[in-house]
C-alpha cells in the first residue's frame, strides 16, 4: 500500500535532484553572497544580542529564507510546469487520493528546503563555527516552515494557470514577506508602527523561532511563534486538501 504516494514523492524528489545545480547549489551560492555582502557592509554594527554579532545573527535568517523560498519554489514550479506542459494528466489519471498527492508534494518541498538549509549551514561552518543552542527547535521550525511554504507553493500551483501568474505570486507575496520578516534586522530595531505591522507577517515567526533555536534569543516568545507557525501550516494544509479533493482548477 501507499506505493502510489511513495512513487509520486520519489518522482518529485528526483525532479529537483536531477537539476540540483539550479535547485540546490544556486540557492546556496546566492545565500552566501547575501551573507558576504551584508556581513561586510554592516560589520560595524554592534552585537544584536549579547555575544551574537551581526554576522552570526544573519546566518540562520538567511538559511531559513533560502529554505522557505526553495520549499515554495519546489511545489509551485512542479505544479505549474506540469500544468502548462499538460503532463499533470499522468498523475490525475492515476488512482491517487487527495491526501497522497498532498503528502507527496509537501514532503518533496520540505526535502528540498531542508537540503538547502543543511547545505547553507555546512558551508558557513567554513567561515565561522556556530552550533545551534537548541538543535531540536531548529529542526522543528525548519520542518514546519518548509511545510508551510511548500503548501503555499502547492496552493499557488493549483491556482495559477500561467507562468506569469506564478511569477506575480512569487514577486508580490513571497518575496516581500520573506524580506520583511526580520532576516536582516531584529524587529526591535524598527519604529513601533512597523513592529506592529511586522507582527502580521507569518514569515516573521518562522525566522524568529528558527533563530531562537540557534541563539536562545528571539523577538517573539518561541512558543508563540511555534503556535502561529504550526497553526498556519495546518490551516493551509487543510485548504490544500479541500481544493485537491474538489479538483479545483485541476479537474474541470
Amino acid at each position, binding site marked *: 500500500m501507499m506505493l502510489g504516494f511513495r512513487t509520486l514523492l520519489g518522482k518529485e524528489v528526483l525532479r529537483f535532484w536531477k537539476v540540483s545545480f539550479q535547485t540546490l547549489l544556486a540557492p546556496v551560492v546566492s545565500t552566501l553572497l547575501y551573507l558576504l555582502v551584508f556581513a561586510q557592509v554592516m560589520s560595524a554594527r554592534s552585537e544584536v544580542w549579547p555575544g551574537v554579532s551581526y554576522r552570526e545573527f544573519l546566518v540562520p535568517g538567511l538559511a531559513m529564507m533560502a529554505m522557505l523560498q526553495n520549499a515554495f519554489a519546489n511545489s509551485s514550479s512542479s505544479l505549474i510546469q506540469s500544468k502548462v*506542459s499538460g503532463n499533470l494528466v499522468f498523475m490525475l489519471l492515476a488512482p491517487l487520493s487527495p491526501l497522497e498527492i498532498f503528502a507527496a508534494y509537501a514532503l518533496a518541498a520540505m526535502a528540498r528546503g531542508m537540503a538547502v538549509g543543511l547545505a547553507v549551514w555546512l558551508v558557513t561552518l567554513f567561515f565561522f563555527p556556530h552550533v545551534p543552542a537548541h538543535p531540536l527547535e531548529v529542526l522543528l521550525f525548519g520542518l514546519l516552515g518548509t511545510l508551510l511554504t511548500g503548501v503555499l507553493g502547492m496552493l499557488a500551483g493549483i491556482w495559477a494557470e500561467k507562468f506569469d501568474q506564478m511569477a506575480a505570486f512569487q514577486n508580490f507575496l513571497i518575496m516581500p514577506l520573506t524580506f520583511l520578516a526580520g532576516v536582516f534586522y531584529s524587529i526591535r530595531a524598527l519604529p513601533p508602527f512597523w513592529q506592529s505591522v511586522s507582527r502580521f507577517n507569518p514569515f516573521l515567526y518562522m525566522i524568529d523561532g528558527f533563530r531562537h533555536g540557534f541563539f536562545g534569543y528571539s523577538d517573539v516568545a518561541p512558543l508563540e511563534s511555534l503556535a502561529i507557525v504550526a497553526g498556519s501550516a495546518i490551516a493551509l494544509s487543510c485548504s490544500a486538501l479541500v481544493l485537491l479533493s474538489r479538483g479545483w482548477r485541476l479537474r*474541470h
Partner: protein
Amino acid sequence: MPDRGARAGRAGEAAISIQGVEKSFGALRALKGVDLQVEQGEFFALLGPNGAGKTTLISLLAGLSRPDAGRLAILGHDTGSDYRAARRLVGIVPQELVFDPFFTVRETLRIQSGYFGIPPDRAWIDELLENLQLTDKADANMRSLSGGMKRRVLVAQALVHRPPVLVLDEPTAGVDVELRQTLWKFIRRLNGEGHTILLTTHYLEEAQALCNRVAMMKEGRIVALDTTRNLLAAHSHPSLSFGVAGDLPLPPALAARAQALPGGRHRLALGDFAEVEQVLAACRQAGLQVEDLEVGQADLEEVFVAIVSGAAQGRIPS
C-alpha cells in the same frame, strides 16, 4: 499477455457505461445528453468531426473532468464516487502529445506503474517497449523522442497497469504507416485476449477494419450507434466507376443515375454486386466499350459523411 486485468469485470457488466451525460464549458454545451454502453471485449469506435465532443467524453471517463449531469462507470465502478477502482480498470491514451521532460522512457513507465500502486514489472515494461518498438529508446530522455515515438510512449503508459479497458484518443495521429500497423496488431492482440478497446480516429478506414461497433457524434450528441456492418449496409453501397471508349454518352437509363467523375468517367451506386453485370450488359447493348473498370466497396467514410452532414439518420437503439 498475463491478463489478470482483462478478466477483472463481472460477467454481464458493461465495460463502459455512460448515462445522460452533459457537460458545458461556459455557454458552450459540449455534451448534450450522451448515453452509450460498451460491452466487455468490444472493439469500439467513437467517431465524429472536430469539436464533436469525443475528447470531452473521454476526459469524463478518465476522471479528468466531472460531468454536469449523468453518470459514467467503468466495469460498474462510478468514475466519481468509486474513482479509485474505476481508474485502475481503465487505461487512457490522451489526444495531446504530453510528456515529462525530466525523465527517460523507462523512468516514465516505472513512475506511471507506481502511481497505480503496482510495483514496476520489468518483464511487462520490456514487453510493452518491444511491442511498441521502443526498446532502443528505453533509456532516452522523453525530450529527445520524435512525435510518433512520444505517442507510442503514451500508449505504453496507458497499458502499464494492465487495464481491462483501454481508451485511445487518436492514437495514430502522426504515427507512420509501418508503426500504425504494428500498433494495431498489438491492440488487436489485446482485444483478442479480452481487453475492451474504445478508440477515436479520423482515419475511418482504420475504424472500419478494426471495430465491431461504431458510435458517431456530432455537436455533443450521438447521432448513430450500430455495428460497423449494419452501418455500412444501411448507408454505403458498392459502386462501379468506369470510362467509355471515345467518351460516348451513356444510355439514358444509366446516365440518369450516374455521377460524373473527372476525366469523363462515370460512377454508379449499386444496390449489390449482381448489378455490375446488368450495367455492363446495358453498355454492351448500346454499343459502348467499357474501359478502366473499378468496383468500389462500401466504406465508412461514406457513412460518416452521410450521417454527419445530416443527409441520413443513424439508427440509435433505445
